[in-house]
């Protein structure tokens, strides 16, 4: 990408910020429209599609039976991975997973894992011999900005609607995966000198650092990540944390409503 475009865009974002505006007309902490669909992929044991502005992301859950690690004979495992494939944007190149896609997968993984919503001991089939490995794969189809929040939402929604395919593996009857909690991510980006919620593609191109906050049902922090160049103050963090609390509880309600259907 030619550096000229981001620098012109950067000037424009700064100019807009002086009047408290954003490039797409939103307020500083307004999010774009979010649509969530669950149970939408035939071969996945749990699945979700998130359309978040111009961003489209699928997440699918698969199970496998594996041997537990010797030091944790009764614990299953959870893994969340993301692929930023070239389908999602012209900026993505084919090849092995990029640092960006590894970061995305790991930040979403930490939020879900550290919230404790999956009890690893409940994934045990035969201690020391057989445990479930749960794999969440995040598939970004269209990157229109803020893929982190959309990926986090798709991943937890897919997980919460997953059915353990015990029959197919000949270890009992199928049952709904027990998920105690709905960790949700909220992401902020410095654009025009101040933080905005839910950055668009242009704000990502012409902005500075980003901060991702994952909150659990009780409002506790489960994953934090600061990405890209830039520094911020404790006061700035306190401000966006308050916004994150509100955004996360709204999205958590959306997940609960979809599960009810």
């Amino acid at each position, binding site marked *: 990408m030619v550096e000229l475009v981001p620098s012109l865009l950067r000037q424009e974002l700064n100019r807009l910020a002086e009047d408290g505006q954003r490039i797409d007309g939103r307020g500083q902490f307004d999010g774009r429209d979010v649509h969530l669909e669950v149970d939408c*992929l035939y*071969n996945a044991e749990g699945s979700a599609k998130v359309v978040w502005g111009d961003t489209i992301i699928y997440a699918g859950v698969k199970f496998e039976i594996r041997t537990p690690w010797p030091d944790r004979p009764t614990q299953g495992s959870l893994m969340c991975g993301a692929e930023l494939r070239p389908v999602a944007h012209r900026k993505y190149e084919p090849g*092995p997973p990029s640092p960006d896609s590894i970061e995305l997968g790991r930040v979403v993984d930490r939020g879900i894992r550290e919230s404790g919503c999956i009890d690893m001991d409940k994934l045990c089939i035969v201690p020391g011999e057989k445990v479930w490995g749960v794999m969440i794969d995040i*598939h970004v189809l*269209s990157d229109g900005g803020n893929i982190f929040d959309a990926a986090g939402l798709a991943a937890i929604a897919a997980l919460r609607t997953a059915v353990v395919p015990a029959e197919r593996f000949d270890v009992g009857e199928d049952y709904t995966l027990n998920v105690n909690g709905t960790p949700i991510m909220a992401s902020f980006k410095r654009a025009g000198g101040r933080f905005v919620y839910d950055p668009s593609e242009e704000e990502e191109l012409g902005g500075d650092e980003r901060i991702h906050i994952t909150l659990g049902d009780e409002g506790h922090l489960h994953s934090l990540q600061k990405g890209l160049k830039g520094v911020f103050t404790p006061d700035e963090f306190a401000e966006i944390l308050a916004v994150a609390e509100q955004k996360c509880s709204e999205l958590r309600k959306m997940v609960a409503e979809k599960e009810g259907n």
Partner: protein
Amino acid sequence: MGGYGDVKLLRDDGKRLDGRAIDEMRPVTIEAGILPAADGSAMVTHGLNVAVAAVYGPMEAHPRKIQRQDRAVIDVRYNMAPFSTGDRIRPGFNRRSREISKVTAEALESVVLVERYPRSKIRVEIEILAAEAGTRCAGITAASVALADAGIPMRDMIVGVASGKIEDTVVLDLDKAEDNYGQADLPVGLLPNTGEIAFLQMDGDLSIDEYNLAMEYNFKAASEIHEVMVDALKRRYEGGEA
């Protein structure tokens, strides 16, 4: 093909296990222009298969060694999502997806007016979200609609469709069980407007007569799917949108 003859795939009333007649296709739906980031895109559902295609370009071809002085190169990637099948697939290319990508690119190069865009590259990304036999065909169909959606000129849209043989009977459009336990599979990419064949693969065992009948089924199904493809593009562009 998988095991022969040991699994019953035709019912006593002559219908197939899912109730279809031998020359009946699974339902096909197509939507054009579904991915905001792409220059052209489409989603095809063919039975339980879900294929999404995105087109980027024409754009500068790099690395430079892939450039052709007189035409565009078409860079196709066919990829199955890890959650698209019964057992999870490890992400990344494998021999199967590389081969399908290669022959799909060559098929598309035969219909796209590549000589209009010398030294450039057209990227076609095919993502399979749910796989239940017939994904390469659904992918070709999706890629054609996505290319048209991107405004790239073509002689015709390629329609992906397959016929095969189960219990010594030629049938149109194999499903998962028929693909696993059947005797032959003939996936093709057809140009309904000219009656030509741009994509051809086959495995199994077919007599010449069986091949001819399978191809007859394929051409019949291709013109049906072609109508759905045209319809999807009309829905996208009628009424002055985009």
